[in-house]
Every structure is written in structure tokens, then in C-alpha cells.
């Protein structure tokens, strides 16, 4: 194993981990070897042009312990949880058995373990993560210290809730998830990233690999509300024929978020919906990065992102659709609209289409502006206070993204939170 130069920004970050443990597991060790050759991303990197991570990598972090930490349980009560759904709760990455439950024994829903992967999920594990090229993928593969495996058998329909609670300052949490929907199965996942009040400076680097077998469906709703902590969340999705992936990202009230939603459509007749609502305030920085790779014909994808940026915050949208030469009859749409509420906020929007097939229908639209003055005046002319009118327009704007969430309680919750956030 090579050693790193001390002045490399990733050196301090990597010093946390004991390479001895890593070397026992060939997959982890291989990723670590890659990591030695991959520089941490900088703004010279096209995919990271508007998002700096060097400050995050320079901070001092602590790895999670082995015990379930005490936590303020009222934070669970605020979430729109359904008691009839299987639930995994993690506290600082440690599986909290007492708060978790499985309602259906025919599914696999378990904390991540290298052993289980070897027995049952070997042919799916680490096939989508790109450890050779992606820095945070390699970090995750080498050092993951939390996460879950979810396997849903053929033709079953399962709903699960995943809750990751942070209660330690400076925590370095690295969840690794593997999700497999077998032929004709349907999975709905609600994932909540939350922190105990006052906790700060944690860094989470999550990586999920999702494999959708033919005719299966995965709905993945991500709730990211982490106050003064940072989240880098990479989701690799492999879609086989006739499968559907629908995701919604609710990203707000968090110092730093970088989401990578990376879809490979490798079968015909797939459907992909990637929606998100971003709200940034103060000095927050939230970056939504989406890449949909259409490799096969007759598929549909749609991206709908709405962003509100206030104060000195920064929001980034970079949605890319690639249509390969053989992928004819693709319908791929992208809509991104952004509203700046302050003169000091920044929004970077970069919609991209890269098309090599000739018989496709693709569109992308992106706009950035202020709240619609005409609409604002119309509401005020009916007796609605300026502040209320602004709130109505902002929530209507963000709520545009939640229409296709198949969970009314969750939808209502997001909508309510958005309303509260725009006081």
C-alpha cells in the first residue's frame, strides 16, 4: 500500500481509518488501493464545479462507537412514520434494534454485513459503485460503517422506513446500502436523515446500490434535514426492462448536501422519475446532481426540480440525460425552476442533454428568477398580506415536485414542513 503525501487534503481524512482492518476484506482493500490514486474532487472537476469539499475533508471527525447512544425520542415522533411498515433505526450509524421492526419475514431487511453479502448478494454487491473514478464511492466501499440490505422477493409489495439519527458532533458516518427488487416486486422506501438538536459538524457519506429486476418498482423518498451537518449521498440505480424508479429528494435545512442520483437504464421500457425540492438559507449549500443514462430503447424519464435560495446560500442543479445510439424512442424530460429570494443567494443550474440516437423526444427547461410579481400583486389585491402571499407562492412552487409521491401522509408532512420553513 502506498502512502499519501501529508499535504494531500484527503490524508487527514484517511488517517482516521486503520488500514489493518480494511486489508482483511478484499473488496474494501481494493477500494482503498483505488483511493490512493483518486484525488478528492475540486472545483476544476466538471461534476464538482460549484461545490467545494476540501473544507469538509479538512475537519476532524470521529468514527461511530458500537453501542446505541441515548437520544431524544421526541425527534422520532415528528416524523410521518407508519407503525405497520418495517423500520430500521440507526443511531450514529449503529443499528438500534429496540426501535426497529420487520413486519414481513419473507423479505431481507437487515443492517449491512459483509458476511451476508458474501453468502447471498455477492453477484449484486459493489457492481454499480465506481471505485476507480469516484472518490466518495471508493471511500464508502473501503470504510462503510453502517447501512442496510433490503431484498424483496418476486411479486411482493413492501414498504420500509429507514431512519438515520445523528447525536454526535463530528461524526463520520458511512452507510452502505444494497437494495434488490426481484422480478415484479415493489419496494417503497422512506429514508430520513435527521439529527438531534444542536449536533453539528458530522459528515455522512452514503452510497446505495439499487438493482431493479424486470418489471419491478422502487419508490425511494429521501428526507434530508440535518441542520449544521453535511451529507454526500450517492445512489446508483440499475434498471432492467419494464422496471420503474421513482424518487423524491426533500433537501433543506442542512449546511451541506450533495446528492448524486445515477441511473442506468439498461433494459427496454423503463420509467424513471427523479423529483426534488431544495430550499437553502443562511450559508447552506445544496447540490442536486442527476445522471440518467438511457442505454436501451422505448424508455421514459422525467426530472422535476424546484429550488428556493435565500440569504447567502447556494443551490446547484446539474441534471444530465444521456441517450445512447441504440436507445431509440426515448422520451426524456427535464424541468428545473429556481427562485432567488435574496440578492446574495446563488443558484447554478446546468441542464444537459447528450443524445446519440435520432428518434427521441427530449426536452429540458431551466429558469431562475424572483417570485412572480404579478401573482404576488394579485393575491395582495384580494386582501392577502405580502408575507402570506409570498409563502403561498413558495410552497406552491416547491409542492409541484411532490405530486407523484405515493404516500399521502409523507406528502402532507413535506408540504407542511416546507410551509414552516418559509416563515
Amino acid at each position, binding site marked *: 500500500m502506498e502512502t499519501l503525501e501529508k499535504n494531500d487534503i484527503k490524508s487527514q481524512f484517511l488517517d482516521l481509518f486503520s488500514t489493518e482492518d480494511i486489508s482483511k476484506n478484499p473488496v474494501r482493500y481494493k477500494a482503498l488501493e483505488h483511493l490512493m490514486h483518486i484525488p478528492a474532487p475540486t472545483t476544476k472537476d466538471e461534476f464538482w464545479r460549484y461545490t467545494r469539499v476540501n473544507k469538509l475533508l479538512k475537519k476532524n471527525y470521529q468514527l461511530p462507537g458500537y453501542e446505541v447512544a441515548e437520544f431524544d425520542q421526541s425527534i422520532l415522533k415528528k416524523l410521518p412514520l407508519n407503525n405497520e411498515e418495517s423500520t430500521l433505526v440507526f443511531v450514529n450509524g449503529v443499528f438500534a434494534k429496540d426501535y426497529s421492526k420487520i413486519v414481513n419475514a419473507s423479505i431481507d431487511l437487515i443492517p449491512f454485513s459483509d458476511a451476508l453479502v458474501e453468502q447471498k448478494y455477492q453477484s449484486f454487491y459493489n457492481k454499480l459503485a465506481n471505485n476507480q473514478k469516484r472518490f466518495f464511492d471508493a471511500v464508502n466501499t473501503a470504510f462503510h460503517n453502517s447501512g442496510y440490505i433490503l431484498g424483496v422477493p418476486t411479486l411482493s409489495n413492501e414498504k420500509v422506513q429507514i431512519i438515520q439519527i445523528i447525536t454526535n458532533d463530528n461524526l463520520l458516518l458511512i452507510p452502505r446500502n444494497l437494495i434488490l427488487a426481484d422480478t415484479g416486486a415493489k419496494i417503497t422506501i422512506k429514508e430520513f436523515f435527521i439529527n438531534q438538536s444542536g449536533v453539528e459538524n458530522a459528515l455522512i457519506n452514503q452510497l446505495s446500490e439499487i438493482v431493479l429486476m424486470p418489471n419491478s418498482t422502487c419508490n425511494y423518498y429521501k428526507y434530508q434535514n440535518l441542520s449544521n451537518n453535511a451529507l454526500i449521498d450517492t445512489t446508483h440505480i440499475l434498471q432492467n426492462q419494464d422496471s420503474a424508479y421513482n424518487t423524491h429528494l426533500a433537501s433543506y435545512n442542512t449546511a451541506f448536501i450533495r446528492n448524486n442520483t445515477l441511473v442506468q437504464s439498461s433494459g427496454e421500457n423503463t420509467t424513471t422519475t427523479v423529483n426534488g425540492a431544495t430550499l437553502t438559507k443562511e450559508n447552506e449549500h445544496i447540490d442536486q446532481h442527476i445522471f440518467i443514462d438511457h442505454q436501451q430503447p422505448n424508455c421514459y424519464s422525467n426530472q422535476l426540480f424546484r429550488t428556493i435560495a435565500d440569504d447567502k446560500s447556494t443551490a446547484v442543479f446539474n441534471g444530465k440525460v444521456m441517450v445512447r445510439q441504440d436507445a431509440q424512442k426515448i422520451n426524456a424530460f427535464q424541468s428545473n425552476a429556481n427562485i432567488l429570494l435574496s440578492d446574495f443567494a446563488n443558484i447554478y443550474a446546468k441542464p444537459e442533454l447528450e443524445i446519440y440516437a435520432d428518434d427521441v423526444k427530449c426536452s429540458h427547461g431551466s429558469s431562475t428568477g424572483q417570485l*412572480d410579481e*404579478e*401573482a404576488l*400583486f*394579485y*393575491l*395582495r*389585491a*384580494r*386582501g*392577502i*398580506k*405580502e408575507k*402570506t*402571499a409570498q409563502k*403561498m*407562492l413558495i*410552497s*406552491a*412552487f416547491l*409542492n*409541484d415536485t411532490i405530486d407523484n409521491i405515493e404516500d399521502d401522509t409523507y406528502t402532507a408532512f413535506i408540504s407542511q414542513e416546507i410551509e414552516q420553513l418559509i416563515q
Partner: protein
Amino acid sequence: MKLLEVKNLHAAIDGNEILKGINLTVNEGEVHAIMGPNGSGKSTLSAVLAGKDDYEITEGEVLFKGKNLFDLEPEERAAEGLFLAFQYPVEIPGVSNMNFLKTAVNEIREYKGLEPLSAKDFIKLIKEKAKLVELDPKFLQRAVNEGFSGGEKKRNEIFQMAVLDPKLAILDETDSGLDIDALRIVANGVNKLRRPDNATIVITHYQRLLDYIVPDIVHVLYNGKIVKTGDKNFAMELEEKGYDWIKESV
């Protein structure tokens, strides 16, 4: 009682004077028509009264129920009972008509120091007023004006007027873009809302609407000033002769 007193009102946009000394008094129980050729300042007058801040008031004053109108924000004017039916009603995606009206009704009640309406009373009010303008209640679940036809938008304006029950309603070119059936429905609605204690200003280019909403007083606005005032027959005369003779005689 005097509802509205406009005294020597001058208003400009980007340094261009559009209103050049308007004088107008509207009493309770009256219907005024303001007519005039395109570009005479009709819509500017309604926008200035409703509180659109694109315009600069350079001279004069406006009293509404004795209060200085320009001291009030647009929402306060509305809460005091001023209503503008927009010439081009705005589409607001994501905000349902129901939520919009409920918020408006309750914010106005709050301004007046009243408790919010209960859900039951609100629905009752809405249903009753929807009938008045022959509106399908399904329409209430739709987003404000989104995808509405021209006629539906205008009907929605009058419906809002019915719900908010203003002291003074200003109808800005409400007849533009309406076919004859829609015009009849809209005018019927307005007539049913007439009371001895409220008033209406109908702004229009054509006399046609005034066959349905019969005015007490007709004004001609030309080049930023009211140049002639008469009774309802004056409107017919205008329709016959057109505006050119007015332009020549001023």
C-alpha cells in the same frame, strides 16, 4: 355617502405621465362607467387605485371611505373594501381557488378583528356565491385561473368579488374577450351584488357591457383626464359617434 374621492390625480410610469389630473367622486349606491379610447389611461387608473407599485403618484390625492388611499398597502385597500376585477387575471399554479379564497376571506376578517370563518361556514358561503355566477363547484379545487378560458377567468373574478363583498368594485375591461353568454352571466352577477351601500366602477372600451350593467354616470377618459361626463344615454351617443369627436372637441 362618498366612497371614493379622486382629486387632481397625476401618475407616471418611467417618467411618462399617464394620468394628468383626474377628478372623480363615487357615492354609495352608484354605478360609474369610465370609457375611452385605447391608451387613454383607464387601466392605469384602476392599477393605481388597487395599489400596483409600478406607478409613481406625482400629484393629487385619493380618499377611500375618507382614508388616504396611498397610505394603505394593496392588501389593506382590499380589506377596507376595494376590489379590482383584473383585465388579465393571473394564473397561479399550485394554489387552489379554495385555499386562495379561504386565505383571502380570513386575512380580511383578521384585519377587521374578526375570528376566522369555520370550515363549514366558509363552504356555505362559497357554494352560495358560486351559484350567483353559475360556477361549477369542481372549479374550486383547480389552481387559480390555471388553464381557464378567458370567460372562466372573468367569471372567477366576479365570483371572488361576490365572496369578498367589497364596498367599491372596479371592473377593468371585464367584458373584453367575453362572448355574449359569458357577458350576460358576468353582468347578472354584478347586478345581483348591487346594493344601496356599495358602488361599482365599470371600465370599458365598448358600450356593449353597459346594456347589461346600466350606469348612473358615464365618464370619458382621454389623454389622462376625464374630459366629459354624462348620464347613461351619453354612453349610447359615444357608441354611435365613436371617440373621434371627443378627441376633436378637447
